[in-house]
């Protein structure tokens, strides 16, 4: 055999030890500390893209696209609150803190949501006057840290959201790193400037659903039973968590899947704890139905909502509304390729920038640096968000009309099929072209 002509085996990268994994091992070995970043999970997951609407044909009757009404409004907090919330569209802005975001970004979220006729939400760090002033409907988060929590703001809010957890880190607290602690952030949180601010993972004055019931009652007493009380949970055991939130007296349950973003959390936590939202909606709806509370206690779902199809699919699976966070930031200008040169200086690229904890955001959104923050014009950014919200609503309406629905809430699981067995099992809709729903036995 001619030894010069032996075919050579091509170099082969390991699927297990891929370049990203090996780079992370080297980074860990060099620093001795886990990776912290912002945003939600980046792995491939069963998601709304794995579902399709069937649309109308002979057996179903569609509605005329530009002629026949397809309503989009939603009432939230009708169970106990004297002043429930009425939104024009079932797409809300998720809780994000002043501290994690600049004051300009918070103002832009308020402006965009108000133009679109929906609500925005405070975060860990309290309510800013800019945000309250620009938000027609503002949800005030009640978090374990209670940073900036005070009864005046509680009374100014349109609803109160008791945060138990979030999809990016169910069971975890938070950490706002010192570089984002400006004088104003420090003052609002009663802490020295420049130190890392930990947010607790449990509430300081209650433990478990029996206590939560008493806590919710206290919040109602303080606000004279006017405000809807939301309870937000990260998606882990949605059937039981939603049932317990209802038992505790929630008006609205917010369920956040692992695609939901965070300002700063360990990468290992973001990628390995919690459920994708697709797997969480049906058990949550099942809990509400079993208690006879579906549509009486409203369900808001979040985590990876990107377009009107996602909105329509979430609603078809039984949600009353959705919330967006990451997508709203993108609409404001986050990760825009216009800043590519600066992203490269930070060792990343547009679309992949997730070091939100560092406060060096070229788009001026996830920062407290006055010069960077000044890059974001709250008025034009708010307009972009409003435009985007309109598109989400229009797209969802387009699909709903095609399915013959005169209201987005009339969408139902029967309108859906799944492209994969996994999605069929999680969403409890049949695999396309079959009548098979994995996990549901038929005899």
């Amino acid at each position, binding site marked *: 055999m001619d030894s010069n002509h032996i075919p050579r085996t091509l170099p082969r990268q390991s699927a297990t030890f891929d370049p990203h994994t090996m780079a992370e091992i080297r980074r860990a070995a060099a*620093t*001795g*500390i886990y990776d912290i970043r912002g945003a939600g999970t980046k792995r491939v997951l069963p998601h709304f893209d794995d579902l399709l609407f069937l649309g109308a044909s002979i057996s179903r009757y569609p509605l005329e696209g530009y002629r026949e009404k397809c309503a989009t409004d939603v009432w939230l907090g009708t169970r106990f609150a004297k002043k429930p919330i009425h939104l024009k569209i079932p797409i809300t802005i998720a809780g994000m803190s002043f501290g994690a975001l600049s004051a300009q970004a918070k103002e832009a979220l308020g402006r965009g949501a108000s133009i679109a006729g929906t609500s925005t939400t405070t975060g860990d760090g309290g309510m800013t006057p800019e945000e309250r002033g620009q938000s027609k409907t503002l949800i005030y988060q009640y978090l374990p*840290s*209670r940073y900036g*929590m*005070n*009864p005046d703001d*509680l009374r100014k809010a349109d609803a109160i959201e008791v945060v138990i957890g979030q999809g990016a880190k169910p069971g975890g607290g938070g*950490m706002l*790193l*010192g570089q984002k602690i400006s004088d104003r952030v420090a003052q609002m*949180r*009663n*802490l*020295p400037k*420049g*130190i*890392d601010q*930990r947010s*607790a993972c449990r509430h*300081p*004055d*209650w433990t478990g659903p029996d*206590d939560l019931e*008493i*806590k919710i*009652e*206290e919040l109602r*007493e*303080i*606000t*004279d*039973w006017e405000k809807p009380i939301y309870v937000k949970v990260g998606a882990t055991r949605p059937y039981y968590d939603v049932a317990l939130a209802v038992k505790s007296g929630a008006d609205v349950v917010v369920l956040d899947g692992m695609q939901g973003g965070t300002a700063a959390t360990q990468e290992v936590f973001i990628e390995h704890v919690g459920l994708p939202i697709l797997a969480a909606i049906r058990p949550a709806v099942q809990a509400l139905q079993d208690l006879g509370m579906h549509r009486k206690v409203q369900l808001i779902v979040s985590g990876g909502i990107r377009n009107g199809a996602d909105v329509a699919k979430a609603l078809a699976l039984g949600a009353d509304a959705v919330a967006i966070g990451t997508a709203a930031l993108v609409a404001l200008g986050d990760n825009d390729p216009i800043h590519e040169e600066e992203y490269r200086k930070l060792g990343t690229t547009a679309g992949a920038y997730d070091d939100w904890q560092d406060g060096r955001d070229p788009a001026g959104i996830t920062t407290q640096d006055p010069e960077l923050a000044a890059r974001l014009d709250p008025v034009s950014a708010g307009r972009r968000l409003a435009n985007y919200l309109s598109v989400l609503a229009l797209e969802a309406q387009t699909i709903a009309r095609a399915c013959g629905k005169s209201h987005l809430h009339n969408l139902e699981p029967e309108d859906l099929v799944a492209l994969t067995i996994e999605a069929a099992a999680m969403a409890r809709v049949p695999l396309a072209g079959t009548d098979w729903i994995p996990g549901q036995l038929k005899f």
Partner: protein
Amino acid sequence: MSVVDLAVTSRRELNIQLHALAPNTNQTHWRVENPNGQHSLAVGLDAPVTVEIAGHAGYYCAGMNKQATVVVEGNAGVGVAENMISGMVHVKGDASQAAGATAHGGLLVIDGDASARCGISMKGVNIVVKGSIGPMSAFMAQSGTLIVLGDAGDALGDSIYEARLFVRGSVKSLGTDCVEKTLREEHKEELRELLNAAGLGDAINVDEFKRYGSSRKLYNFHVDNAAAY
């Protein structure tokens, strides 16, 4: 004096009446009879009035208080004066867990003992406990002052920030990043002032207290401190 008898009037009605008080109200003295341990009594007040609760209170009594003076003549349940902003809350009996949790201001006085997590995450409140306090008290305490005439349980001041802790008796153990500090004249002065405000006058010798606070080693995360978490 306005008297509300909870044997015939609901808690809701009591809180409605208290919330309706204007800043210049002349109904400045209220007495709540037959509280029977009900939760959320006198919560969310925002007027310079005095409310006496003639018995035991349940969870979150005087929660988020502003301006008002609330006196509990019996014991108080979980989270008394939680998130208080200003004013004064005086418990004549014992207090359960999380007394004064996250409170931003005002003065909380407990004549008896306070259970676990007293002053957890406190944010500026002053707390005087004439008895002893339970474990994990002043956990993540941010600012304000906690004075204990008796003893403190395990893990006092764990992950403390800038709050000041003074204990006259023993401390079973200190939490992570909490250390004993020198008791200087300025601290003695603060002690005298707060003890006086708590109605103890000059009866207590402030030299008997030890001061505890943050060693500030965990203020910025460093991998070499990972074992401390």
